[in-house]
């Protein structure tokens, strides 16, 4: 059997990689991809804990389903915003859309 800590280490690594994507990428859609990676790392963590420590309840599984729903909603609205900004400003570079109002 795979030890619990292996899953946690992998999840931590994927989370950090995703965070790097969020912090360093200039393209807004690339930032969304980084966020997806982070959410996936969190899901992996949740399921590992469910399997090893709390497998007698279904809470972990339901939790992950809710995270999926939230991730989907986030991508849907996030991409809609990016497309809208692209239409108005012809840019997807986050550094160029730092004004609250134009």
């Amino acid at each position, binding site marked *: 059997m795979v030890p619990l800590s292996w899953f946690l280490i992998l999840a931590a690594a994927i989370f950090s990689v995703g965070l790097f994507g969020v912090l360093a990428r200039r*393209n807004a859609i690339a930032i969304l991809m980084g966020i997806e990676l982070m959410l996936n790392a969190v899901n992996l963590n949740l399921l590992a804990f469910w399997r090893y420590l709390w497998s007698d309840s279904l809470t972990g599984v339901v939790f992950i389903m809710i995270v999926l729903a939230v991730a989907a909603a986030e991508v849907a609205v996030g991409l809609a915003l990016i497309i809208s900004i692209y*239409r108005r400003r012809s840019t997807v570079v986050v550094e160029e859309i730092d004004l609250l109002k134009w």
Partner: protein
Amino acid sequence: MTGPQIIFLAVGAVTLIAAIMVVTVPRLVHAGLWLILALAGIAVLFILLDNGFLAVIQVAIYIDAIAILIIIGVMLTRTAMSDTARQINRMWLGAAFACLVIMAGLLAIVSQAPTATAGLLVEDQVSMEALGRVLVDVDGFILPFEVASVLLVAALVGAILVAMTPARGD
């Protein structure tokens, strides 16, 4: 080294490499395809954690819907930023440093994780029927279940409202 451990190491390595490619490749379409590989790796890891249901919905939602939607988004906004342009901002070194610090912190916490061994799963814990019941049971997760529906509709309405707003001269 047992079988699952070998599979874990192989799949974990692929997933991690794919994740690194997602944040580093300059062509965004390729980043999207690498993201799909990383998501598929996570699905295999879910199977290793004995939850086939979540593995399947990981594929059904993330790969079939979210990743495709992201690729469509990349294609729609592609003309705004050419693939040869600088993809990483000026503070990427600082970002990398911050990520390393956070990873070190996470690893420090992980090292205190309990060395639990996975118990045997009984049929009831992975049964779809129990899950379906707990989702609509008043003592279960009825509130998150209905709120998820409201959240999805709110996202649908919001996204249509934002994306459909005609641009100038459209």
